[in-house]
């Protein structure tokens, strides 16, 4: 992170002033082209250094994940035991691991697994949560009761515990191959996290349902799917997307934790979490094996958390 101090200084919102400067706002919200929440937020975001830094880090990480060969020509799986646990040098910037593989190359190639898990888990969580949340919020009554209770059942499972139990099943079922393993980890994260997204969506949908334009649409006999997609969804998206961004960072950390416990990803899907886990028994003799992937992991999570923070502040009119 280049300079978080100055970055942070520019982001705290200006409070109070907007309430008093009336006329230009009247004009903007008049009959002309109204400024939407999103374009407002975007204008606001572009001025935030925190957002720009986080965005740049994420774009860079995405490029590394998609085109790892642009960043290293070394085969991450090439073993040379004579280099085992060698410290960083000109030949291998991040040193070598236990089996004499280049840590830098492995970090570069590990980015895609880490990001893949984080992104898919976040998307899946938001999809499941948003779907059930909007249904519960719109229909209310026993449907809401049922969905909320089911949500509570999954919410009642502490995350790490639940993930251990689920992934232990997967381990026993002897799943092999990178993608099935990734899917198992993603699914277990989503299964344990969707109630949070569901609650956020549900309360947003309940609020939106009270709005006059939704009542009007209902009075005019619009069908439920039409109201949900046309009216509710666009107005409920903001909070759940903010959650999704912050959760993306958190899920990357969760994947690392699960891999660290030996139940997350494993060979051939070598994420940073797996590398950290592999290095855990050698932290005293070869800390570089742990510190480099851990550093990348931290920077990535940090970038997503900062992005989520910035977006939340931009979308929250109270803070603007």
């Amino acid at each position, binding site marked *: 992170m280049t300079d978080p101090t100055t970055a942070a200084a520019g982001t705290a919102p200006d409070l109070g002033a907007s309430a*008093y400067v009336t006329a230009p706002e009247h004009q903007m919200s008049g009959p002309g082209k109204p400024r939407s929440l999103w374009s407002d937020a975007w204008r606001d975001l572009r001025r935030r250094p925190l957002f720009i830094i986080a965005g740049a880090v994420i774009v860079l990480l995405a490029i590394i994940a998609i085109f790892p060969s642009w960043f290293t020509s070394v085969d991450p799986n090439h073993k040379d035991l004579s280099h085992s646990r060698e410290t960083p040098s000109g030949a291998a910037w991040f040193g070598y691991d236990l089996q004499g593989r280049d840590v830098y190359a492995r970090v570069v190639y590990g980015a895609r697994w880490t990001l893949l898990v984080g992104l898919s888990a976040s998307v899946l969580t938001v999809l499941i949560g948003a779907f059930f949340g909007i249904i519960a919020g719109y229909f209310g009554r026993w449907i809401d009761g049922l969905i909320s209770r089911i949500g509570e059942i999954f919410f009642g499972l502490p995350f790490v515990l639940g993930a251990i139990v689920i992934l232990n099943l997967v381990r026993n079922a002897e799943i092999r191959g990178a993608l099935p393993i990734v899917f198992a980890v993603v699914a277990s994260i989503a299964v344990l996290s969707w109630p949070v997204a569901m609650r956020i969506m549900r309360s947003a949908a309940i609020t939106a349902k009270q709005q006059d334009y939704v009542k009007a649409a209902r009075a005019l006999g619009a069908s439920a799917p039409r109201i949900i997609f046309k009216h509710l969804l666009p107005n409920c998206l903001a909070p759940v997307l903010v959650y999704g961004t912050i959760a993306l960072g958190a899920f990357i950390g969760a994947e690392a934790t699960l891999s660290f416990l030996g139940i997350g990803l494993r060979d051939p899907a070598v994420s940073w979490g797996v590398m950290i886990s592999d290095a855990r028994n050698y932290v005293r003799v070869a800390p570089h094996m742990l510190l480099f992937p851990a550093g990348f992991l931290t920077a990535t999570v940090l970038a997503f958390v900062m992005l989520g923070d910035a977006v939340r502040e931009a979308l929250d009119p109270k803070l603007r």
Partner: protein
Amino acid sequence: MADSYEPGAVPDGPLLEVEDLYVEFRTRDGVAKVLNGVSYHVDAGETLAVLGESGSGKSVTAQAIMGILDTPPAVVTGGEIRFHGENLLAVGEERRNEVRAEGVAIIFQDALSALNPVYTVGFQIEEQLRVRQGMSRRDARDRAVELLDLVRIPNAARRVRQYPHEFSGGMRQRAMIAMSLALDPEVLIADEPTTALDVTVQAQIMDLLKEIQVERRMGLILITHDLGVVAEVADRIAVMYAGRIVEHADAVSLYRTPGHPYTAALMDSLPRLDQKGSTLNTIKGLPPSLLNIPPGCPFHPRCPRAEDRCAVEVPPDHRLGLGRTSKCHFAEELVSRV
């Protein structure tokens, strides 16, 4: 008299006096000049109505008097606020705090958000009595019940233990009034006290305020945008526009012959029963952005009477007889027309 304050009259000057007050809001988007030389005063037993659209600076003036402006962004850049001749802007925070509630008290438009949701109404009244007058819990509770009785809240002894959200809108505003009276203030500022209420309740609250004011010989500053409310209770009226007082007059003369085109336009925009069927008159255009107040007379872009000079020359106060002023180049003409 009026807002042209004579030096040397300090000892026996008005009870509360605002003179040439300037306030700016320093924001990310620029400096908003919210108050630009506001002067008014109020005496014991007298009601001054401050009239204006939202954003005209009427509430900011009230907050400046109480010393409760949000700083930043608000900064007082000039002027004086005198209570019994003492400039409140020059005294220390401790003295300022003594004047609050005991000297000048305020009630707000939205009593629900102005009352702390997690304490009972009684607690919030007693708090002042206990902290400021060192009353015991029991005495303060008794006094709080008396005060609630005074503002005609039925069942005061039970109500005192309830939370603000358990009160109806009108009852909440009554509780707010009771709270403001706890320390027997000499001046009460009512900042849009009835705007958030139903019409029938509005009348009750106004009657109550008027009655209490007469009984206690308080100075009352009534801030409102509702001309109907003003007509019934005000002795004098100050009309605000773009952070300045554009007209200042006794209620009777102002209603008979508005001395400023803005006042006239406001009165024209009232619906009238005797002209049923005709369209409502509205003031064209929008209030100016305080970040960018028009040069000359700030009202000129919306003024039906405007001439070229209005866009250039800032109109000074024109005296129109006893205690009456107007910031319009054509003030005399407007008044003499009738």
